[in-house]
């Protein structure tokens, strides 16, 4: 049986590696819940397709460990005897502001002010298993579960009040944290109803919830929960955690990727005050009283390395085309063929064939990977920034050969991630050093380590051949993506004859998730190519798109963005260009129009104005959504115009913020954002999708301004001249 709240697809790889038998026991869960919180009532969301959720050690082992929450629980809520409402979820706050939006949906159903609710997130000892905060799944899945949990809690409170007050249940309502009867008699605080009780209610996705048209708290621009702690510097990120007796750790890095340690002389480092060197196989690290002393100690290590010749960035795209990789599951090939592309091209009046390339780019979360690790009686606690707290718990348990229950991973609200913090390198390193040193260890990656030893958004080559009739009807669409990924591979445009395919390749650099995955690359190629075809056919790019588009939601955002931008009303001046692009990803719809100033003589290119229309079903928090869209456009500008990892022979050549340009204040265009609120549709995630349309919109605008069609991301790393 498939739970409707689980997505049909999960966008990230590495999720289905393990599964296990069901192990749910009401009695066990009851004890576990109340061990964590004390008396009151608990409402928990029971997942019915547990296999898709979990990859934990066998249940027997877990029970022996003292009882974690059963794996079938998606999220749960507790109302204490003091009326305190606490929500428990494995999701992580990365800056996408789900602490606020999830609070809102709970407040909505419980009919209380958001300030009454506290969220316990991403502490593996307290929250139910979660696969990770990724794939824009928090809103469609977790918000949906929590709405149901909160709605069921409200109904349970009504039951309890009816019994307690010996009144007709139908006469009672829940308002402002109380259950009240007509004329406020009787009136029960939530805590009064939960006193002395230990009630667990398990619910599923059948619990009815308040429709979006009736929302009063959800759907509003509630301010960021705990916002004050961020503007005062009081919020403690993982890199801010301090433990008694804590020392600072640092790892000796090889001079190049894939290098192996031949020998290391540690004497000089060990002679430094308070320094301890830990050497286990290829791993050499130090602990020291300060980060400065740790850096000096690493500098005093004398190591010899064996390096392996590796390819240079200049050969990257040839390499990706010629080195197919064996990959299965989510990283594996994907192919969709309809009709005959050859016949479609024969029937076309105009054809365009081109190749696009995509560079590796770095996430550059401003808080680098960081962890504080502490061992106590064989148990490990790690504070770290990761989007997969349970995944990192598993990595730690495996690395140290201990049960997962002996590892607690706590993720304080993070200094961003953008898909770049799915793994637990810093946690493993800190834990290893802490174990050897017998003291808590803090380890914070330097920016250079972050650029070199993390992973990148995949590079890729995309080859497109397309044909259309004079009237703009698409007749053929062939699209091959090498390495960058299969997200948004399929075209939303109608074409009878199609062949789209993703070809996994051997990546010379470590690669992984990045906000919107390959949807950015695939939209860049597709929407640039369509623009080219429209130009060949002498058709308006928007009209050409609409002619081949049946999807009403995508049409709506394209039309809304065009309207906001004034598309078709003004002719661009000299050196000015307008571009449009749109797309669908993760159940959300986006269209962006861009105005650029571009000059081939000076090489200068500047994105002046951006109008984006976005639709993701019923909006949970309009201002936060707007913030995400603006931020995604801003981030997209970097990958569109200038961000690229340069590398040669196993070395990253630009591993510093002084060498790797990210968007800054001066790059910010004027931004206009239009939100289409579809209260009749379920809410979809919106942290990723708004990033996909900017690059092609800008490229199309540069083409209009200059006649130059730029087919590589980034499009203008050194301005327009050098490209």
């Amino acid at each position, binding site marked *: 049986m498939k739970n409707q709240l689980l997505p049909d697809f999960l966008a990230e790889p590495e999720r289905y590696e393990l599964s296990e038998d069901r192990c749910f026991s009401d009695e066990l869960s009851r004890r576990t819940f109340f061990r964590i919180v004390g008396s009151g009532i608990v409402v928990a969301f029971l997942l019915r397709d547990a296999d898709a959720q979990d990859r934990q050690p066998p249940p027997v082992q877990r029970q022996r460990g003292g009882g974690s929450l059963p794996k079938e629980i998606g999220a749960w809520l507790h109302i204490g005897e003091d009326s305190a409402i606490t929500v428990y979820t494995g999701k992580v706050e990365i800056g996408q502001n789900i602490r606020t939006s999830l609070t809102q949906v709970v407040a909505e159903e419980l009919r209380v002010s958001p300030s009454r609710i506290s969220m316990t997130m991403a502490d593996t000892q307290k929250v139910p298993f979660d696969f990770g905060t990724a794939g824009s799944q928090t809103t469609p899945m977790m918000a949906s579960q929590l709405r149901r949990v909160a709605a069921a809690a409200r109904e349970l409170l009504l039951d309890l009040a009816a019994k307690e007050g010996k009144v007709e249940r139908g006469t009672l309502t829940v308002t402002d944290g109380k259950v009240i009867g007509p004329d406020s008699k009787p009136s029960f605080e939530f805590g009064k109803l939960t006193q002395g009780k230990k009630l667990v209610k398990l619910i599923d996705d059948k619990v009815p919830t308040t429709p979006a048209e009736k929302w009063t708290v959800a759907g509003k621009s509630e301010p960021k929960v705990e916002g004050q702690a961020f503007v005062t510097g009081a919020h403690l990120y993982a890199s801010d955690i301090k433990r008694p007796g804590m020392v600072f750790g640092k790892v000796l890095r090889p001079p190049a990727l894939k290098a192996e340690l031949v020998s290391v002389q540690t004497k000089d480092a060990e002679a430094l005050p308070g320094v301890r060197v830990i050497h286990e196989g290829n791993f050499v690290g130090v602990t020291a009283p300060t980060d400065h002393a740790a850096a000096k100690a690493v500098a005093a290590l004398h190591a010899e390395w064996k390096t392996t010749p590796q390819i240079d960035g200049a050969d990257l795209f040839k390499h990706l085309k010629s080195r197919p990789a064996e990959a299965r599951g989510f990283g594996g090939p994907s192919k969709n063929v309809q009709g005959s592309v050859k016949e479609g091209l024969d029937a076309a009046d105009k054809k365009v064939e081109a190749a696009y390339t995509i560079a590796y780019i770095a996430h550059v979360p401003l*808080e680098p990977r960081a962890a504080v690790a502490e061992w106590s009686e064989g148990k490990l606690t790690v504070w770290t920034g990761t989007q997969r707290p349970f995944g990192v718990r598993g990595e730690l348990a495996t690395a140290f050969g201990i049960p997962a229950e002996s590892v607690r991973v706590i993720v304080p609200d993070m200094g961003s991630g953008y898909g770049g913090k799915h793994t637990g390198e810093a946690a493993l390193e800190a834990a290893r050093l802490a174990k050897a040193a017998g003291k808590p260890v803090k380890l914070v990656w330097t920016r250079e380590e972050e650029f070199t030893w993390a992973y990148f958004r995949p590079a890729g080559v995309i080859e497109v051949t397309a044909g259309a009739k004079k009237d703009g009807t698409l007749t053929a669409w062939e699209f091959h993506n090498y390495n960058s990924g299969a997200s948004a591979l399929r075209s939303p445009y109608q074409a009878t004859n199609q062949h789209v395919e993703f070809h996994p390749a051997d990546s010379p650099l470590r690669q992984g998730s990045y906000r919107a995955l390959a949807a950015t690359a695939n939209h860049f190629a597709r929407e640039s190519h369509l623009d080219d075809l429209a130009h060949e056919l002498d058709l308006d790019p928007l009209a050409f798109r609409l002619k081949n588009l049946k999807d009403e939601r995508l049409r709506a955002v394209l039309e809304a963005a065009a309207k906001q931008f004034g598309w078709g009303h003004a002719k661009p001046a000299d050196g000015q260009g307008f571009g449009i692009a749109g797309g669908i990803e993760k159940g959300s719809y986006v269209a962006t129009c861009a105005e650029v100033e571009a000059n081939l003589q000076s090489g200068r290119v500047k994105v002046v104005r951006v109008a984006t229309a976005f639709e993701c079903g019923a909006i949970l928090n309009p201002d936060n959504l707007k913030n995400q869209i603006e931020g995604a456009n801003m981030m997209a500008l970097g990958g569109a115009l200038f961000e690229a990892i340069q590398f040669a022979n196993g070395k990253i050549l630009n591993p510093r913020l002084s060498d790797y340009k990210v*968007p800054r204040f001066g790059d910010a265009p004027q931004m206009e954002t239009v939100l289409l609120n579809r209260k009749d549709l379920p809410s979809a995630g919106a942290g990723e999708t708004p990033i996909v349309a900017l690059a092609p919109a800008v490229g199309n605008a540069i083409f209009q301004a200059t006649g130059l069609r730029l087919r590589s991301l980034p499009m203008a790393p050194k301005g327009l001249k050098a490209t």
Partner: protein
Amino acid sequence: MPTVKELHINGSKRSLDADSERSLLSVLRDDLDLTGSKYGCGEGSCGACTVLLDGKPTRSCITPVGSAEGKPIGTIEGLAHDGKLHPIQEAFLKTGALQCGYCTPGMIMSAMGLLSKEAEPDRDAIVRFMGGNICRCGTYPRIITAIEQAAKALKGSGK
């Protein structure tokens, strides 16, 4: 090795014992528990570590603590008084000028430096002055608005 024994931070004298060549950032964070200032790049390129040194926005990650001795140091922790936020902090909250918030203290300290020098900066002046601060979440347009609002509020309050 020379050590620093005292720093003047947020109007108070703080005792410590730190190698003078250590960065001001790590001394603030690790010795004095003032973790509001952040590490972002270690080379003064991102502004996350910005503090006011002698009233000027300074990248504490590349400032040896020895060079800060005897000078007034202002950090994000010194802005709010008795639970009342500074108008710049208020403006950041009001305009939603943050997502993950990691750059926020550095942004606010840079903005403090700007507004102490120029009471009513126009957009271009804000963009120029703030150019060394990175917000990877991309809230730049909101930060500009926040600084404009804070400038108005400060002018109104006569500060």
